[in-house]
């Protein structure tokens, strides 16, 4: 494998690690706001790293630009939906989880 291939592999692996972190967050975090946070931040960073990793494998400039466009679109979608869902949850009176209050879902963090 050439130097570029190694660089590509490293970015891909880092991206996969972020996805793992996002999944763990989605499964383990105590309320909808924190889980949104895990999904919107870690997964999009993971997607970014995977896109960068694949850029090193792209055949042409057009293919590379398309990959970047895919990432930007995913970012826009995540940002919008995260905002809308969090806004709606807040409106409906779902209280954010706090570490200093014995929350009803406290057992989930163990």
């Amino acid at each position, binding site marked *: 494998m050439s130097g570029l291939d190694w660089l590509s592999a490293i970015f891909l692996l880092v991206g996969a690690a972020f996805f793992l972190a996002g999944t763990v967050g989605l499964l383990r975090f105590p309320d909808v706001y924190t889980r949104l946070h895990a999904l919107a931040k870690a997964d999009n960073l993971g997607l970014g790293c995977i896109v960068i990793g694949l850029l090193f494998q792209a055949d042409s400039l057009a293919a590379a630009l398309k990959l970047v466009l895919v990432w930007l679109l995913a970012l826009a979608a995540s940002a919008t939906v995260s905002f809308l869902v969090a806004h709606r949850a807040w*409106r409906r009176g779902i209280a954010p989880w706090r570490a200093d209050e014995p929350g009803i879902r406290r057992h989930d963090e163990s």
Partner: protein
Amino acid sequence: MNLAFDLLLIAALLWSAGRALTTPDLFRAVVLFIVFGLLMALAWARLDAPDIALAEAAIGAGLTGALLLDALGHLRGPVRRKSGLIAPSTVMSSEGAGPPAFPTYFLNGLAIVLAVALGLALAGALLLLPEPAISLPREVAAAMDASGVAHPVTAVLLNFRGYDTLLEVAVLWLALLGVLAVAGGRAPGRAPVTPRSARASLKVPRLLARVLAPLALLVAGYLLWAGAHQPGGAFQAGAVLAAAAVLLNLAGLLPGGATPRWVLRAGLGFGLLVFLAVAAAVMGQGVLLQYPPAWAGALIMLIETGLTLSIGLTLAGLFLALSGASRQ
């Protein structure tokens, strides 16, 4: 590694479909079904069918979810009585089942046994089927030179089996007529009602819709152009166009309603009319929809352009007709 991917994906497909049908909560069922549709797109990607994956992704992500979630608001919970009395709906949705009587248990058991038997019989038939005498991929490859396009799926859709596609577009059109007939009779072109609290949060989806709708137009154009030589074509492009209309409607930028204006009605029929006109013009060849080889490429592109417009408008109309109607 491929086998691991396939088995995991198939397990997820069966699980999401099974849970969507068995879970007592209707909202959960709808979300699981949306997940199922998106998993199907991954399955098509694995099955070497990127054309279907494109269509399933566009419909699964852009239409199914919006259609079902919008309908859920009207279909869940207890039935509204004429007196206006509505039972408290603290749960998101429920079908409210009491304990069934004995004959119900028996009949349910019978239905399950029959369904399992059907599944086993189908699986057995699939495994015992003899090898086909004719290889369709080889037949298609042999005729590709005369088709006018370079992508086999487009050649099948618009040339070798063009009459199927013609009828299929007519069916799509009839479905929209049905929806308009059922959802019709309400105020024309009324803007979707936006509750006060939702207005502030509408700014963000509005911005998104203003950015994404032109991009969706671009992607639809790209898919239409791509269809001649790689996966893509009128159906995928039309589905993307329709999804853009759905997003605009959700953001309150495009009114719903069950009575389209005449320009829209003309657009709805345009693709079908172009298709019929081409079919009539090439009647002289003796076979239905047999294009002269020199013209095939141009004629297919003409039909596909018309179809993209009509399929996009029809699919969008299916959502808009239901979305604009009876918010109260």
